[in-house]
């Protein structure tokens, strides 16, 4: 029987139920109105906003600004008063019509409820390693494009990273307890009970709508089975509370200023450095005929000037020829240039600057006897620091969370959210290497021509003109998140739920590439037209003006049903049993089209292609795929007097990504708890408010990083790109990778031991956990000999061990009227690739997987120091290259210079020397973990000792909060294309960053960090000096002031007089204002090791002025 048929019938039932329920609302007889005031038991101040509910129902209200409430209740019902920071209180309604209640500040948070998988638990009896954050985490933080951003340093075990500072494209990521697999490490995120298809969805959620987040870090996640390997994050959005309508408005405005980034030097510094590097290249003799030497010399003589070629005596009108001089200096023979520009433009300062962001949130919440609601609107406009072109990110949110009670047994919970985020960036944002995000800039070039036109010189464009005039790349993401849950308490101890979730992601990309005409400085010459008009090329790269459109439709739906039984026997045996099933399915569909050679740049339309009839002038594509997951799950909890706790969870998952007979797998988790503080012998000590020992063990799975249909041999079909006869032939090709029929889920075994404590009447509390995760059948791409001729399928042949510990401690107290809190947390997570089938090859620098080492390990030579004298150079050469025979890798040869008698090529004083670690007389690169050569392990890119500490204080209306965050240990080596900013003057003709200035070796400064300056012209001496070594890796440890807030809440008395506002708070916040880092190359310590593309977008600091206004 078809599932879909049944699904429809179930929906039919759902509809019927809704219909019946809506016509059979029951009223509640016998109840009468109760009024009262809630006050603080300590200082007798009235407490506004206290939730007053009737036990066992969803009826309730909130106290108003004077702490007063009104509520209808029957005499046999029980009123529950709860308020954050206070112990809840239950009071029988009785027959009195007035109830004044005093609440005492909570000694600890034992009454708090924690969201766990498919339900909630009391924090006191939770046995898993579960951390939570509440809505305060997302307050006062200024523009936040992704709520993950605000978690940095807040949660032990949660490491948050980003790869960029580009608005909307920060690529915020987080990991729970470090790497658990080489395949994808994104925790599963469940929003209001429904899993998100992928964590990109967090890019459009409104952080202001989040009530709390639970992080399931250990076996507690096992109930999510197949996808819980990296932990599970449960986000709960804010709901309405019974009581009068509350309108809250939170506006803020933020100013971003540039944070750490490499800064380019001024032209004179560049020129002097370049001449020095070239002279070094030439063994101490200035190469005065070399064009770039002449260029630097010419720049020094003409600083701040633009010298048109026409002003140079002897210029023939078309090209700079050899032998010309100008003002006594030889003119560099750069044949085709029209002028020499020596403006002192610091391109990094021209491109990047300040930006303003604004955010507005409005919510209306409240509710009555039958229903509660919270409606919220959000708007964020995040400005970009890139000062040219159209840039930014906007987010629009509408959310309606609503609960409706049809009867005492039957209710529905609805969450409806429309989210949209739009990202803009200039299309020619990375256009060749001389772009805004390119690896360098040309020295001396102006931003624009004298009249403000786009500028180009000798094949090198200044980025501003291209950014401004080259078109815009618009990305629009619309997400519709719907989920409804029917709750049905159909017998005394039973509760059933049925959830339908339907999340759709719709993306629309529109990328227009306009033609930009680039001129010489005085507008006299049209130097280039980029992209060129009309042209196209077979590979589809956007050489010409073109317009690209892409749409993605990605619906993801969930069906979840649960049935729970809760009972208590003899008041000491508390039992809960829950079982359920779910089905999830994703249907991804995207198409794209591109038209070249457009009739007009003014409007963007696919129909405007002038050459649409010609092959290659229109390209299109389509991708469709899907996957599904079917699951059964269950939980059993038992506790004896709330003292001895047991929880068991299980899950049985089937995935469409595996062949049928390897598809289903069961996962389980068991945890135990002992609330030692409840034991009488501990109670006698009268010291512990809470003391709980927790232990858990469980398994969870991962199927990420696996192709959707990898078990099926498929063939690609498309253009062969080969001309046969008079057409480009179609070809069928293999996918290039083998099919695996025997792979299955990765299974991570997680063990955790934890201790929660609370002492000094709850003033000091905290917890400590130690954990170990073992991924014994990790899916890895084993490297096979090249003779295989294809990439091998991943197989379950890896074994990764991750272990560590985490701790959090919080101290809350008050001194006089100053309430304060201090809290710190630290996590250490290490991992080791225990087993990795096949041979682990290594190369200098970054290696993702090497058996016996952590993921992301760096290898390289062991730095000995700088060669300080010629005698040391000779001895070094003699050691590694006796008799001039090179037996080394990367060691420049010392051969006699034909042109300079007595001098040799190769190393000189001021260059690095490296140790012969394996004492074989050779300097050799390692090849594999079995043969390290002279390489040593230099550390891992994976951070260790991630920590955060925060402090808060309140005094009268003032509040203060600050959080520091950092990483204790991390190694970074920026190889690859970021090289030319790491290695000064490796590209002699490009602008340099200031990292080396004043820090270069010389006989007078023997301890300077940088070796002799060299350009790439000399035998790769830079490659030798700057290769991966214990010298060239960066220390990625840092400490950062993540956020600091100063707020002031206007006095209540003032509010009462306004009759409009019930509360007004204004605050000033700063983010990323300060940090401590030892990075040499100028990048922020959070910048990736690759620093390519938008990873080069500079990080920023920002100041926020905002208000929280409650009506």
């Amino acid at each position, binding site marked *: 029987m078809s599932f879909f048929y049944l699904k429809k019938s179930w929906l039919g039932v759902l509809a019927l*139920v809704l219909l019946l329920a809506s016509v059979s609302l029951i009223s509640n007889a016998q109840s009468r109105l109760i009024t009262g005031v809630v006050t603080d038991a300590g200082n007798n101040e009235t407490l506004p906003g206290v939730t007053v509910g009737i036990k066992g129902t969803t009826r309730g209200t909130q106290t108003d600004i004077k702490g007063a409430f009104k509520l209808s209740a029957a005499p046999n019902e029980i009123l529950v008063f709860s308020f954050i920071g206070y112990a809840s209180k239950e009071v029988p309604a009785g027959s009195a019509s007035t109830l004044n209640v005093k609440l005492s500040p909570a000694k600890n948070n034992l009454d708090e409820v924690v969201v766990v998988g498919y339900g909630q638990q009391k924090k006191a009896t939770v046995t898993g390693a579960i951390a939570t954050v509440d809505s305060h985490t997302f307050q006062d933080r200024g523009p936040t494009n992704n709520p993950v951003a605000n978690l940095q340093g807040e949660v032990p075990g949660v490491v948050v990273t980003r790869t960029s500072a580009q608005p909307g494209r920060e690529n915020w990521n987080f990991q729970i307890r470090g790497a658990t697999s080489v395949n994808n490490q994104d925790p599963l995120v469940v929003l209001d009970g429904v899993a998100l298809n992928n964590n990109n969805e967090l890019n459009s959620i409104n952080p202001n709508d989040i009530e709390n987040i639970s992080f399931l870090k250990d076996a507690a996640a096992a109930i999510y089975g197949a996808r819980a390997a990296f932990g599970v994050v449960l986000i709960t959005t804010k709901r309405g509370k019974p009581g009068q309508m509350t309108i809250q408005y939170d506006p803020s405005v933020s100013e971003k200023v540039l944070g750490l980034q490499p800064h380019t030097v001024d032209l004179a510094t560049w020129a002097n450095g370049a001449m020095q590097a070239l002279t070094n290249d030439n063994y101490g003799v200035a190469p005065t005929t070399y064009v770039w030497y002449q260029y630097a010399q010419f720049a020094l003589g003409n600083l701040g000037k633009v010298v048109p070629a026409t002003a140079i005596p002897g210029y023939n009108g078309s090209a700079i020829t*050899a032998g010309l001089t100008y003002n006594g200096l030889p003119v560099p023979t750069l044949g085709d240039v029209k002028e020499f520009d020596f403006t002192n433009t610091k391109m990094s300062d021209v491109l990047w600057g300040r930006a303003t962001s604004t955010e507005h949130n409005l919510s209306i919440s409240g509710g009555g006897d039958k229903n509660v609601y919270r409606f919220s609107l959000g708007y964020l406009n995040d400005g970009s620091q890139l000062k040219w072109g159209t840039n930014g990110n906007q987010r629009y949110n509408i959310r309606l969370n609503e609960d409706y009670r049809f009867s005492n047994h039957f209710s529905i919970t609805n969450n409806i959210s429309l989210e949209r985020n739009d990202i803009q960036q200039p299309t020619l944002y990375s256009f060749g290497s001389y772009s805004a995000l390119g690896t360098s800039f040309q020295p001396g070039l102006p931003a624009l021509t004298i009249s403000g036109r786009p500028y180009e010189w000798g094949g090198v464009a200044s980025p501003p003109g291209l950014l401004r005039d080259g078109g815009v790349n618009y990305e629009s993401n619309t997400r519709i998140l719907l989920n409804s849950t029917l709750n049905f308490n159909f017998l005394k101890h039973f509760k059933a739920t049925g959830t339908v979730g339907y999340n759709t992601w719709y993306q629309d990309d529109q990328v227009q590439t306009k033609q930009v005409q680039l001129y010489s400085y005085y507008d006299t010459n049209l130097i280039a037209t980029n992209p060129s008009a009309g042209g196209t090329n077979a590979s589809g790269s956007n050489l010409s003006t073109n317009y690209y459109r892409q749409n993605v439709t990605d619906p993801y739906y969930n069906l979840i049903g649960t049935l729970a039984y809760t009972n208590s026997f003899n008041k000491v045996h508390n039992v809960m049993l829950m079982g359920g099933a779910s089905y999830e399915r994703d249907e991804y569909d995207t198409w794209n089209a591109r038209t070249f050679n457009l009739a007009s740049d003014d409007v963007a339309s696919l129909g405007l292609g002038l050459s649409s009839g010609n092959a290659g002038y229109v390209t299109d594509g389509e991708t469709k795929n899907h996957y599904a997951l079917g699951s059964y799950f269950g939980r059993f909890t038992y506790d004896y007097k709330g003292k001895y706790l047991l929880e068991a969870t299980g899950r049985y998952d089937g995935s469409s990504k595996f062949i049928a007979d390897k598809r289903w797998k069961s996962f389980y988790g068991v945890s135990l708890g002992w609330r030692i503080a409840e034991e009488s012998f501990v109670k006698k000590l009268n010291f512990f408010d809470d003391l709980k020992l927790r232990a858990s063990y469980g398994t969870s799975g991962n199927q990420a990083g696996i192709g959707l249909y990898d078990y099926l041999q498929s063939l690609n079909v498309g253009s062969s790109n080969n001309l046969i006869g008079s057409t480009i032939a179609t070809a069928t090709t293999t996918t290039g990778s083998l099919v695996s029929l025997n792979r299955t889920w990765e299974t991570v075994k997680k063990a955790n031991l934890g201790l929660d404590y609370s002492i000094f009447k709850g003033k000091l509390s905290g917890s400590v956990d130690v954990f170990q995760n073992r991924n014994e059948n990790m899916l890895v791409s084993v490297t096979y000999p090249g003779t295989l001729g294809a990439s091998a399928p991943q197989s379950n042949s890896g074994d990764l061990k991750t272990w560590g510990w985490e701790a959090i401690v919080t101290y809350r107290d008050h001194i006089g009227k100053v309430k304060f809190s201090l809290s710190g947390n630290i996590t250490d997570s290490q991992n080791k690739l225990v087993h990795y089938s096949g041979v682990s090859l290594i190369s200098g620098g970054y290696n993702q997987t090497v058996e016996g080492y952590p993921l992301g390990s760096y290898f390289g030579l062991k730095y000995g120091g700088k060669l300080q004298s010629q005698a040391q150079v000779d001895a070094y050469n003699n050691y590694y290259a006796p008799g001039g025979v090179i037996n080394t890798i990367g060691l420049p040869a010392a051969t006699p210079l034909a042109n300079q008698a007595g001098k040799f090529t190769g190393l000189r004083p001021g260059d690095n020397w490296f140790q012969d670690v394996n004492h074989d007389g050779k300097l050799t690169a390692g090849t594999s973990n079995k043969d390290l050569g002279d390489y040593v392990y230099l550390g891992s890119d994976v951070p260790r000792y991630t920590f955060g500490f925060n402090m808060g204080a309140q005094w009268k209306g003032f509040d203060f909060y600050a959080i520091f965050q950092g990483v204790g240990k991390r190694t970074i080596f920026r190889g690859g294309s970021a090289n030319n900013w790491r290695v000064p003057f490796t590209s002699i003709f490009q602008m340099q960053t200031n990292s080396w200035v004043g820090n270069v070796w010389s006989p007078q400064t023997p301890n300077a960090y940088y070796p002799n300056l060299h350009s790439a012209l000399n035998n790769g001496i830079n490659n030798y000096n700057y290769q991966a070594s214990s010298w060239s890796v960066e220390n990625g440890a840092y400490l950062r002031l993540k956020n600091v807030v100063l707020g002031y809440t206007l006095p209540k008395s003032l509010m009462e007089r306004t009759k409009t506002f019930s509360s007004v708070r204004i605050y000033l916040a700063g983010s990323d204002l300060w940090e401590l880092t030892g990075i040499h190359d100028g990048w922020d310590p959070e910048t990736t090791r690759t620093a390519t593309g938008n990873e080069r977008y500079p990080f920023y600091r920002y100041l926020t002025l905002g208000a929280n206004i409650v009506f």
Partner: protein
Amino acid sequence: MKNQYKSIFTGLAVLLLSIQFGCKKSLDLTPQDQISDATYWTKASDFKTFANQYYGYLRNFNNSFADNPHYDGRADVFGGGGSYGAGTNIVPASDASWNTNYARIRNCNYLLTKAATYPRPTEIAQYVAEAKFFRAYCYFDLLQLYGGVPLITKLLTVDDPALYGARASRDAVVDQIVADLQAAIPDLPVSLAYSSADYGRVTQGAAQGFLGRVALYEATWQKFRNGDASRYNDLFDKSIAASNAVIQSGLYALFGTKASDALGGGNSSILGDSAMKYMFILENPKSNPAGITKSANHEYLLSYRYDDILKVIGTNISRQANAIGPQQKWVNAPLCTDGLPIEKSPLFQGFATYGSQFMNRDNRLKYSMKVYNMYYWYGNINYRITWLNDAADDANSLGKVTQIGGYGNQKWMTERNCPDAKESEDYPVIRYAEVLLNYAEAIYERNGAISDADLNKSLNLVRLRTNSKNGMPPLTNAFVAANGLDFRTEIRRERFVELYYENFRFDDIKRWHSAQTDLVTNVGGTAYGNATGFVSPWPVSIRYTGTQAQLGPNALKPAPTNPLDQNGNLIIDQSARAFTEKNYLYPIPSSELALNPKLTQNPGW
């Protein structure tokens, strides 16, 4: 209310049950935009479509024009061979040539595996033959680079012991190549007309021509390393037979000859002695004064094909070619018009001026490189206006060559008005001239002698195509004897001159085992110093990295102190090539050695 509960309870039960029964099927999802291998391979066209990808394996402008494992710059034609040319290369961690060839071999084995169970084998015989041809093509590349390599002739799985097998012997690899080609030849089409929808596919002639190349390569490799005479003579015989089959087929002719015109497509011989030059830049838009197009080319047995609309080359062929310059050694190779080398010919005018050295020489000199007093074009900006060699053409040329800083190449430079990277001439993979030269060399090396008749049907056709009007005599036994020439030298010279910048030279030197004489020589540039007509102190054409020569083109020094040779020509580097015995084979990449312990490194590495 009771009824209500019932219906709700039913609903929940249905939900759970539906998942229970629905799951099994709802988890069986198949790709929506890929073809399933299981349902493919049912008709002949499936095999043909799969085989279409093989045509991308052929050498082409994008992978053979600049430095690559077979690059002329790594030999003595010009510089730019990097550390490989200098012989200072080291064992690389990985090597794309190794991986790419085995990936391609897998794709050939893939088709062959599927073909084995195809019920109507005759329908797909041609495509099976193509798979074998391309498997042979890839193994020959591996053989040239590494010598004997692991021989994989089936689809491997990750647990196949063959994956960790040892290297096959050189002989075994050669035998496999020969066997594949011999098996393929009968099933390939004899010929394909230019108008055919299959034009460009491998033909019998292409496979025979390739067999002639492979067999000659290995035969000479063995002969000049004291190999087994019976084996190399057998290979010579195979080479001779294969080349002769191409010659006898009558389907191919040198472009620009009457024989070629007889095969149709256009009157290429009206291009006269410049026909060869225009063949290399032959396009369908007007690319030569006669407006001859590709259909008139019967010289290319197999080529990597381009088209000015459907498939342009996509790299700056003409500009790159313009920037390259031959070494002095190559410039000295072409004969004088009396058929004698410059050392012997009274017609040679010496190096007194820049122009003097080009006088009375083989026409291939002026059609391969830029010579004194001539005009050259390179497509973008500097292109032919009228094609009449008139003032308009000259005015839009690169300028008359009068002063030059170094020797300049001109082969492959288009003359038509063509934007950068939009050229579309075909890249010759196997051309008839090479077949003829293979034939002559194989006969000579097999027998120690070659008859005038054999020379006239082969080498002399090549030589005289460009020199039919300037009085150059054919190579004959009598001429050799009369002038004290050496046959082997002259045969090899003909290859050196004719196959200039087609990336044969490095492999030729390797198989002849002649690096000790051919490569370990001074790298020479143009004359410098007293000769007139020179302005630049540096031979910018010689770009040579990894050695001391690098100092030259980078112009760090105001004046060279390098010595001059006996002709007054600058010696760029006196010890340019550290070419030793080990350099005849590239090293096996170290990662492969680490991955497969049975794999052994080539000697000396």
